[in-house]
C-alpha cells in the first residue's frame, strides 16, 4: 500500500534515525491512546459483536464507526499508513468514460493499464471472488468489476481485502477497461487500494433496490439534469434539507445533481467575466470593510479593528468605490464579490451574497439595457441550449413556470404603468405632502400592506410590488423610477421628477438594478440630504451621506452608467432553485441546539 516505505532515506537524515524511531514510536503510542479514548466514548457495543458483520447496511452507525476506527488502529500498528500520501492517476473518470464508452459489450482491453481514483458509493458482491463497485469522481461514475481472477492478490488476500472495503471509501485502482456482459463500462482492477477510509456510514436511498437495472435507470435520470430544466430534490438520496445545507459535502457526494448546480454557478460567473472582458472592462477589487457603508439602503455588519481601534462596516455595495475608480480614469470596471447585509434570512436573502457590478463611462441606462439583454440571453442560450427555462418559481410543490429570455425584454415605465394598472393619477411632485397622503390612501384602498414608516418611497415601493412586479415573469425592465426612490441615479433628461433607472425583474424578483449615474455633486448632496429626512422619519435603511464620495464627484465623474446584478438569484433561476441556499455552498444557518 505504501510504496514509499521502501525508499532509501537521504544521508543527512541517517543520523536522525534513532530520534526518528523514538518519535515515531511515541507518536504511534499517542495515536493509539487517542483511539482508545475514542473507543470508550463511541463504542458501546460488547466485545463479542466486534467481528465483521456481513451486511453493513444493517449495522448500527455507532458500531460501524467504532469498528472502522479499530481496524485503522490495527493497520497503523502493523506499520501500514491507512492514508497514503499519493496515488498517481493516469486519467479522470470523465476522461475514462470519453475514451472507452464505445467499447463493445463484453469487450476487455486487457493490455492497457489505467489508474483511476474515486469514491465508492455502491458495493455489491455476487461471491467472495467477484465484487461490483460504483466509482464516483468529479460528478461522473463508472462501474468497478473486481474479479479475483484479474487481481494481483491471491484469492484469500483478495477476499479479505475486499470484504474490508466499505461504501464511502476512496480507492485507487490500477486495471484495464472493458464493458460487462450487461454493457456497463467498467474498470477491471489488477489492484485496488483504499486511499481514504470513510469512517461513517453513508445515508442510503430510501427505496434501495439491488437490481442493476433499477440502479442504472435511477443514475441515468440523476445524471441527465442540465441547467434550465427542472429538478426534483425529493428523489435525492440525501433529502433532509438541514443536513444537505449543513453538511454540504454529503449533499455533493450523494446527490449527483448538486455538483452540477455549483458547476453551473461557476459557468455563470465566468461567462459574465468573459463577456465584460471582451468589451474592454477590467476587473477590480474594492474594500469589503469600509468606514461608511454606502451605495445601497441596508443595515450593515459592524466590526472593529483592534490595533487601529477603528470601527469598520462590511460593505453593503461596492458602488461608490467603483465610481471613484471611474473618476480615476478606469472607464470600464467591474467587480464580482461578496456583499453583506445584516438582515433576516429567507428564501431569497442571506447575510452574505455575491454581487456583480459594472460601470461604463460615456454610456447611459439605455445602453445598459441592451448590454444586459445580450449578456443574459447569451448566457441562458449557452448554458441551456435555448432561451427558455423551466423554473419552480412558486416552490417545488407548484407547477414550474416557463421563463423566456429571448431579447428584447419587455420595458414598462414605472409611474405610467402603475397609474394605468391601478387607475390612479399620482401627483407629479412626489416629494410633497400631498403625494404622500395620496399614496397612503392608495395603499389602503387596494389593501397593500406597508409597515411604518410611511415614507413616500416605501409606499411607492409597495404599490409597485403589488401592481407591477407581480406581472414580471419573463424578464421585464421597470424603468424611470422617481428621484426620491433613487438617490444615486441621474435625473431623467426629459421627465421631471424621475430618474434614468431600470430594474430588471424575472419571475417577479429583482435581478438587476441600473442607472445613468448621478454625477452632479451638488445634486448628489441634495439627494443625500433628502435621504437623511427619511432616516429621521425612522427609515433606517435610507442612505447615509458619504462625504468622501461627494468630494470625489467634484473632481468629475464622466457620464457613466452602472449596473448591479445578484449572482445568487441568477444561479437560482438557471438551476431551478426556489431557495437561495440551494446555490450557496455553505449558507448561513441558525445555530444548532
Amino acid at each position, binding site marked *: 500500500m505504501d510504496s514509499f516505505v521502501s525508499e532509501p532515506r537521504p544521508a543527512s*537524515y541517517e543520523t536522525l534515525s534513532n530520534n526518528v524511531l523514538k518519535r515515531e514510536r511515541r507518536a504511534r503510542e499517542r495515536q493509539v491512546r487517542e483511539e482508545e479514548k475514542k473507543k470508550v466514548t463511541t463504542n458501546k457495543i460488547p466485545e463479542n459483536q466486534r467481528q465483521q458483520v456481513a451486511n453493513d447496511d444493517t449495522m448500527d452507525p455507532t458500531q460501524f464507526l467504532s469498528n472502522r476506527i479499530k481496524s485503522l488502529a490495527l493497520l497503523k500498528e502493523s506499520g501500514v499508513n491507512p492514508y497514503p500520501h499519493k496515488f498517481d*492517476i493516469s486519467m479522470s473518470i470523465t476522461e475514462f468514460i470519453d475514451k472507452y464508452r464505445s467499447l463493445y459489450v463484453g469487450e476487455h482491453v486487457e493490455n492497457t493499464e489505467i489508474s483511476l481514483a474515486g469514491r465508492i458509493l455502491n458495493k455489491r458482491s455476487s461471491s467472495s471472488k467477484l465484487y461490483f463497485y460504483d466509482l464516483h469522481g468529479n460528478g461522473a461514475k463508472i462501474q468497478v468489476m473486481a474479479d479475483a481472477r484479474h487481481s494481483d492478490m491471491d484469492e484469500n488476500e483478495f477476499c479479505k481485502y475486499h470484504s474490508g472495503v466499505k461504501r464511502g471509501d476512496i480507492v485507487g485502482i490500477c486495471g484495464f477497461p472493458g464493458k460487462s456482459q450487461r454493457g456497463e463500462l467498467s474498470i477491471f482492477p489488477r489492484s485496488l487500494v483504499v486511499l481514504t477510509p470513510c469512517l461513517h456510514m*453513508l445515508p442510503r436511498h430510501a427505496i434501495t433496490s439491488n437490481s442493476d437495472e433499477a440502479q442504472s435507470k435511477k443514475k441515468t435520470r440523476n445524471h441527465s439534469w442540465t441547467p434550465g430544466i427542472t429538478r426534483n430534490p425529493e428523489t435525492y438520496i440525501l433529502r433532509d434539507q438541514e443536513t444537505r445545507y*449543513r453538511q454540504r*459535502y454529503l449533499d455533493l457526494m450523494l446527490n449527483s445533481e448538486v455538483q452540477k448546480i455549483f458547476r453551473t454557478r*461557476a459557468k455563470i460567473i465566468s461567462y459574465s467575466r468573459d463577456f465584460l472582458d471582451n468589451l474592454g472592462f477590467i476587473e477590480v477589487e474594492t474594500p469589503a470593510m469600509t468606514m461608511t457603508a454606502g451605495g445601497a439602503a441596508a443595515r450593515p455588519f459592524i466590526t472593529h479593528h483592534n*490595533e487601529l481601534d477603528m470601527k469598520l462596516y462590511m460593505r453593503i455595495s461596492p458602488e461608490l468605490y467603483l465610481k471613484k475608480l471611474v*473618476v480615476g480614469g478606469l472607464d470600464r470596471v467591474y467587480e464580482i464579490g461578496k456583499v*453583506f447585509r445584516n438582515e433576516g434570512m429567507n428564501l431569497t436573502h442571506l447575510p452574505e451574497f455575491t454581487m456583480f457590478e459594472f460601470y461604463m463611462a460615456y454610456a447611459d441606462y439605455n445602453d445598459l439595457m441592451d448590454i444586459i439583454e445580450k449578456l443574459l440571453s447569451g448566457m441562458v442560450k449557452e448554458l441551456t441550449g435555448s432561451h427558455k427555462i423551466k423554473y419552480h418559481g412558486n416552490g417545488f410543490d407548484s407547477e414550474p413556470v416557463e421563463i423566456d429570455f429571448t431579447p428584447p425584454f419587455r420595458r414598462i415605465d414605472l409611474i405610467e404603468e402603475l397609474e394605468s394598472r391601478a387607475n390612479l393619477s399620482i401627483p407629479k411632485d412626489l416629494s410633497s405632502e400631498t403625494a404622500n397622503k395620496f399614496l397612503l390612501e392608495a395603499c389602503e384602498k387596494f389593501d397593500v400592506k406597508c409597515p411604518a414608516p410611511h415614507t413616500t418611497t416605501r409606499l411607492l415601493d409597495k404599490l409597485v410590488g403589488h401592481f407591477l412586479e407581480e406581472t414580471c415573469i419573463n424578464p421585464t425592465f421597470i424603468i424611470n423610477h422617481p428621484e426620491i426612490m433613487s438617490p444615486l441615479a441621474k435625473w431623467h433628461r426629459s421627465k421631471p421628477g424621475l430618474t434614468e433607472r431600470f430594474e430588471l425583474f424575472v419571475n417577479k424578483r429583482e435581478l438587476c438594478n441600473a442607472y445613468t449615474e448621478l454625477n452632479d455633486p451638488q445634486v448628489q448632496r441634495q439627494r443625500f440630504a433628502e435621504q437623511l429626512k427619511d432616516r429621521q422619519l425612522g427609515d433606517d435603511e435610507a442612505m447615509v451621506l458619504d462625504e468622501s464620495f461627494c468630494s470625489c464627484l467634484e473632481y468629475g465623474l464622466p457620464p457613466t452608467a452602472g449596473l448591479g446584478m445578484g449572482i445568487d438569484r441568477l444561479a437560482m433561476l438557471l438551476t431551478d432553485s426556489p431557495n437561495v441556499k440551494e446555490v450557496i455552498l455553505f449558507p448561513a444557518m441558525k445555530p444548532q441546539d
Partner: protein
Amino acid sequence: MEGLKVWRLSSSIARPSNLRQLFGLGTSSGLVRCLDNGAAAANATNTRFPSRNRRASTSTSTSTNTSDREAVRAIRLKKVEQLRSKGTEPYGYKWDRSHSAKELQEIYKDLNNGEELDSESHHVSIAGRIVARRAFGKLAFLTLRDDSGTIQLYCEKERLLNDQFEQLKTLVDIGDILGASGSIKRTEKGELSVKVDSFSILTKSLLPLPDKFHGLTDIDKRYRQRYVDMIANPEVADIFRKRAKIMREIRKTVESRGFVEVETPVLQGAAGGAEARPFVTYHNSLGRDLYLRIATELHLKRMLVGGFEKVYEIGRIFRNEGISTRHNPEFTTIEMYEAYSDYQSMMDMAEEIVTQCALEVNGKLTIDYQVGTEIQLQRPWRRETMHNLVKEVTGVDFTELEDDLKVAKDVVLKAVGLGLDSKDKSSIEACPSLGHLLNEVFEIFVEPKLLQPTFVLDYPIEISPLAKPHRRHAGLTERFELFICGRELANAFSELTDPLDQRARLEQQVRQHNKKRAEAVSVTDGTGEQKNIDEDSMYEVTLDDDFLTALEYGMPPASGMGLGIDRLVMLLTDSASIRDVIAFPVLKISQ
C-alpha cells in the same frame, strides 16, 4: 501631447519657487493659464523622469491650500450656472466614442507632420479628461486623456459653431471631461490631433487637480484619494490594469487544468485554517457573533470531501492585525486544492502560475524588483529543505541536534548569538519546541536571503497543523513555502487526511493558544505594562468540529496551496508597498 510632458516634468519638481518660474514661462509665451496652478502649461521638454521619484521624496507640504480650493470651487460652480443658463447641461448623459486615443495614435501613426485627413471616413469622436491646454487668439490646444492614452484637440475658432470657441476659453477648465468630434490632423510639430468641429462639456469638474508639486508627495492623500492619484499619475491606474491581467491569467492557468471556481463563506461561526486574530461581527437576526474568515482552506477541503477533485477560490481574507507595507487587514488570496496530487505537483503549479503571470504582464521572466537584485523566474526554481537552508546559512545542522530543546537552543545561540538583537534572542529562547526553534532560526537568518525564487521544503510538524506527516522523515511535514525577494508568496502542503491525527493536532493548537491567552491575561492583570505585546493572543480559538466530521467521511489524498495575490502583484508591478496594489487600502483615521 505637450501637456502630458509637463505633467511628467512637474512631478519631479519639489519646490514652489519652480512652480512660479513655470507659470512665468507659461504666460510669457502667450499661454492662457487656467485656474489650476498644478496644471500649468509650459513648453515641453523631452525629459522623462521616472515616476518612482515622487515616492521617494518626502512630503514637504500638504495639498493646495484650502482657501484656494474653495475659491476655485466657487468660480467653477458659477460656470455650472452659466452653462445651464445658456441651456447647456454641464453633466451630460452619454457620448458615443468612435475611437480611443490609443486607437487613433495607432491608426494614424504614419500620418506626416502637417498632414490633414478631412474626409467623412476620417471623422472621429473621442472623450476624456482635459489635462492641459494652451490658448491663443483664435487657436487652442487641449490635451485630452482617456483610459487608453492621450491625444491633442486642435481647436480653431472658425471651425466651431457660434460661441463654442469662447466657451472653450472661458468655461472649460483643466480637469473637465469633454467629448469632441472632428477630423484628423498631425501638427507641424508632429502632434497627432483631432481637429475639432464640435465638442460638449460632459462633466464640469469643481475641484482643481492636485498640485503636482506638493499633493502627490503626500503619500497618505494618495491612498485616501486614490482617484486623484490616478488622474495625476496614469501609471498608478496601470498597476490596477496589470492587477486585473494577473487575476485573469491566474484564472486562465488553473481553469485550463480543470479547476472549478467556488465561493465559500466569509462570515463564519468559527474562524479556522490559519493562526490569526479574526474580525468579529454580530448578526442581528441570528443573534450571534460571527467571524470573518482568516483563510478559505477548511471549506475548500470540504469540497474535496464532496467529490470535487480540483477547486479554487480567489477571495478576500480578513485578519485583524497591524498594517504595514506588507499587510492590509483585508487581502486577496487564491487557494487551490487538487485531489490525488501532492506537494511536489503543487510546486510545478506555483511555478506555472507565477511565470505565466510574469510573461503576461511584463513579457519576460526577469524582474528588477525595486532597486537592487534582478530576479530570475526561469524554471525550475531552487527546491531545498528548511534543514539544509538553515545549515547553509547558520552552520547549525538541526539533524545532528539531540531531542533536547535546551541543548539545541544553546547550540543555536552559540553559533549565531553574535548577530542577534535582543528581540530575536528572546524569541529564540521562547520557542516551545525544536520545530519552532528551527523555524525561528529560519525566519531570522534565511528568509531575508531568499531573493531568487526558492521552495523551502519539509517544515516541522509543530508549526504545520494541517499538513500531512512527511512520508519519509518523522517530525516533518510535506509542506513548502515559496519565497521570492525574501517574502513568502505561497504556502502549500500535501493535505492531512487522517481525521484522528487532524483532531489531535487542532486540539493541541487550541490548548497552546489558550495557554498563551491565559498567560497574557495574567500578565495584563499583574502589571499592565506588557499589554500591547500580549494582546495578540487575546482572541478565542475554537475547534471546527464540522470540518473534522467532514474528514471522517473521507477526503482523498490531495495537495493544496494558498498564494498571496497582492504580493504577487507587488512583485510583478515593482511596487514597494501593498498599498500600491490595493485600490483603497485601510488607513489610520485621518487627523
